[in-house]
């Protein structure tokens, strides 16, 4: 019997390495990003589909103006971009999480020190990168001479709007993923939620032009704030106050929905 021979380390490698959490998030983000880039289906829905819809609207309403004198193309571009962004965020994260769960990848992650928050955060970073890329591509295309979108000087303020809006719809996607059992169901639920939301949020036509109750409904829909926020920053319609309110409301949606999603996220 020796005295106090308790020198054996706790584990083979001791405590957590410094920066391990950051590396985990980076690794998971990279894996999710590669997954997204190598998935043609996701690429089409994230980039090609919104662009096709946008171009269709631009062609149809080319040269027309709203009653307030604003070119219709300036009005509709941010709205459709918002719709594409919402679609990409909900579908992207919902599909990934359901697929990861169905293939038991989430269980594999549960066997590592990875937390739910890290899983969600890494996936959010990918969604944010996709949203920013969507914005750049869409704005670049509609700014070409045939369409003549007028980019506002305060375009840079779109970044926080995009970040908050992506977070809100990302959180919605997380919630969808916790009720959907298979990846196919995600698309159904996402569309069932998003298409009516697009009509009620003034994505395709100006809210002042619609009946009062739709206006009322739109105040509780995040897509309205994303659309208005993008419009205020990219097309320069609306005030700074409206940018601030849109960002704050979208952040509020994101925080509440993310809180619910983090609780609802199931490993299996």
């Amino acid at each position, binding site marked *: *019997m*020796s*005295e*106090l*021979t*308790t*020198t*054996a*380390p*706790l*584990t*083979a*490698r*001791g*405590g*957590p*390495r*410094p*920066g*391990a*959490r*950051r*590396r*985990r998030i*980076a*690794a*998971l983000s*990279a*894996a999710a990003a*590669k*997954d997204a880039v*190598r*998935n043609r289906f996701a690429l089409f829905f994230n980039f090609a589909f919104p662009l096709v819809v946008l171009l269709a609207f631009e062609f149809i309403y080319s040269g027309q103006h709203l009653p307030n004198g604003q070119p219709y193309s300036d009005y509709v571009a941010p709205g459709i971009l918002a719709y594409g962004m919402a679609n990409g965020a909900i579908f992207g994260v919902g599909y990934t999480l359901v697929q990861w769960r169905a*293939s*038991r*990848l989430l*269980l*594999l*992650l*549960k*066997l*590592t*020190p*990875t937390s739910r*928050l890290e899983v969600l*955060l890494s996936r959010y970073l990918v969604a944010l990168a996709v949203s920013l890329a969507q914005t750049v591509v869409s704005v670049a295309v509609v700014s070409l001479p045939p369409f003549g979108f007028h980019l506002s000087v305060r375009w840079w303020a779109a970044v926080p709007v995009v970040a908050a809006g992506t977070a809100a719809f990302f959180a919605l996607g997380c919630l969808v993923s916790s009720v959907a059992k298979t990846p196919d169901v995600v698309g159904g639920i996402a569309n069932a939620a998003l298409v009516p939301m697009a009509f009620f949020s003034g994505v395709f036509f100006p809210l002042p032009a619609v009946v009062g109750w739709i206006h009322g409904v739109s105040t509780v829909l995040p897509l309205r704030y994303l659309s208005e926020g993008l419009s205020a920053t990219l097309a320069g319609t609306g005030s700074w106050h409206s940018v601030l*309110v849109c960002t*704050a*409301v979208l*952040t*509020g949606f994101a*925080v*509440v929905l*993310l*809180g619910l999603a983090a609780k609802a996220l199931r*490993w*299996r």
Partner: protein
Amino acid sequence: MTGPAPVPGRRPVLTRRTVVGARSFDGDRWTRLLGETGQDTVVRLNDAQFALLARSDGRRDVEEIAHAATRAGTPVTTGQAERFFDSLAARGRVRWLTPVEDAPRRATRPLRGEPASAVRGWVRVVLATGTGSLVATALGVVVLSWTGVRDAAAGRPTDWVATVLAALLLLPRGLLHELAHAAAASAVGAQVRGIRAHWDGRTFALECRTSSLDLLPRRWRRVVVALAGPAADLVLTAVVGFVWHAGWHGDLVAQSFLLGTVATAGNLLVLPGLDGHRAVLAALGLSARPRWTRPVRRPATRAALLGLAVAGCAAALLLLRETAVALPGGVPALAVGLAGLLLTAAGHSGRTTRPVPAVGTRPAPRGGRTVTTVEHNWAPGHAARGEVAVAPPSGRPLAIEVRDVVKQYPAVRALDGVSFDVGQGEFFGLLGPNGAGKTTLVETLTGLATATSGTVRVLGYDPARREGQFLRSIGMQTQTPAFFAKLTVGEHLSTMAALQEADPALAREAAERVTLTAAWDRRVDQLSGGQRQRVAIAAAVLHHPRVLFLDEPTAALDPDARRRLLDLLATLRGDGTTVVYTTHHLSEAEELCDRVAIVDEGRIVAVDRPSDLIAREGGATEVFVPVMKASLTRAHELVPGADAELVGERVRLRPTHLGEALTAIEAAVGLGGVETRSPRLEDVYLRLTGKVMDDE
């Protein structure tokens, strides 16, 4: 050295000179220490140290441990506790006691010194602040509707946006508040251990932790530290008030002012968790958590307090509405401020309700240096339930300890009172048909499932807690391999290395171990079944886990791939890894495993070395004689006393003495066509369960 023997399932009472069994101090650091070293250990402690060590069970905070010891009758100051733990940690002997690391179920993290943890703290702070503000706002709306004070809220939606923003501004204000506490503590000579975001799943708070505050010789110093935060709040609120008074009547400024005033004033209330309470206690020279506040800290009291808080909030609004509605956004600000304040107070009051383990030490004579000896003799595992021997070969320290584990699903009881031990470095087989409960058992051991009742310890950890150190110490290959399907083998293994906090170079090393380097750049979804299985095993072993769980790794493999995998597994036996190997291929278990447990219908029906099981339970070697050479009657005559039975074209004999039987048969009819068959593991299985393994 004698003392009461540990009673499984009950927390033992420790006295001086007590033999501490493996499961004393149920479940935490002691078990881990003893389980880790597996060596005889003597720790010499005085009574105060002993009390501290006993109270460190499941705790991480020096202050809490000291208070727990004091409450249990051994007065110990936080300073003494800290010096004790520091001295142990400095000698490198008890890293497991370093109180800040590796906290079970607690999420407090310092904001400085550990950048990654700080980020985690901040994320939680931001999330919790935002959610808390919105919830408080919603609560305010409900209260306003209820009290009929609608005019201020309705029609002025921007007030509410401003309220939310003002509530969010409480975050930097709270940080300044804690910095003021820290600066004051530092100035009066206390040790500041950091500012932390505290989050216990229900409430959150920023906290400035000091470690030797109650050692300060003058009470006023403690009062100063307690009041420094509110003083900073006052200054800040005064500045905002001045800006508002100066003419900028913006909603945000007005609401920040109101919210700040309510929060500052409220924080001076004498309620546990608030600064007013701390200041009064310090001024009276009382402990930070005096006994009389214990009732306030009970969950039921907390609930009642919260109810009172909501009622109080409503009453305050009714009283103040005449004044408040005159201010822009006054009512929402008051609602949010009061609700937030009372929620904080209620949250704080519930923080210290952890049960205190019973320890039979008595207060030491003042100044006495009584030596307490705690001795641990590593004995093979505890007595098993029932007749099944569950202990590993004697002398081997335990890696896994399972006691009376039950897992009940709604329709089925998957595990029904399972008990066994696995020694460190053992290759342990779990055998049984599909549906026997093997996978559930492995999932319980790895923390993927939680036992309905019973105790599970792996390397001393409770797997259900998913502690980081535990997860880094185990590896698992699941029955259905899971992958980042669109990634290459290299990318997948590198990702897993990062998730396991392992050196990136280990990914390639793992691929080499499973001979997959040629497939390094191939996508996982393009690999064959055998290659995928090897990728899964590489991912499980790449961080060199101390315990490796393999759940039917050879299922669905062709014979060649299976053989190569078995060769790989054989190499794991040599490197000291504890392996728990689930299979329904009995020949594999016989070949690889040091010991096997046979699982049937959620129970363990036998645990032993394969050879011992076969010798004990397998029955006699069988002799088959062609019926053309000897009929059943003739066979009976040749080998009297042996069981004889006609099986097809042969007579099967089970002689008591094989040699004598063969000699008799050879003399009578010759040995041509005669075959013998030694008992194997499947015979044991058949005998114990009455079932035939269908795949062998």
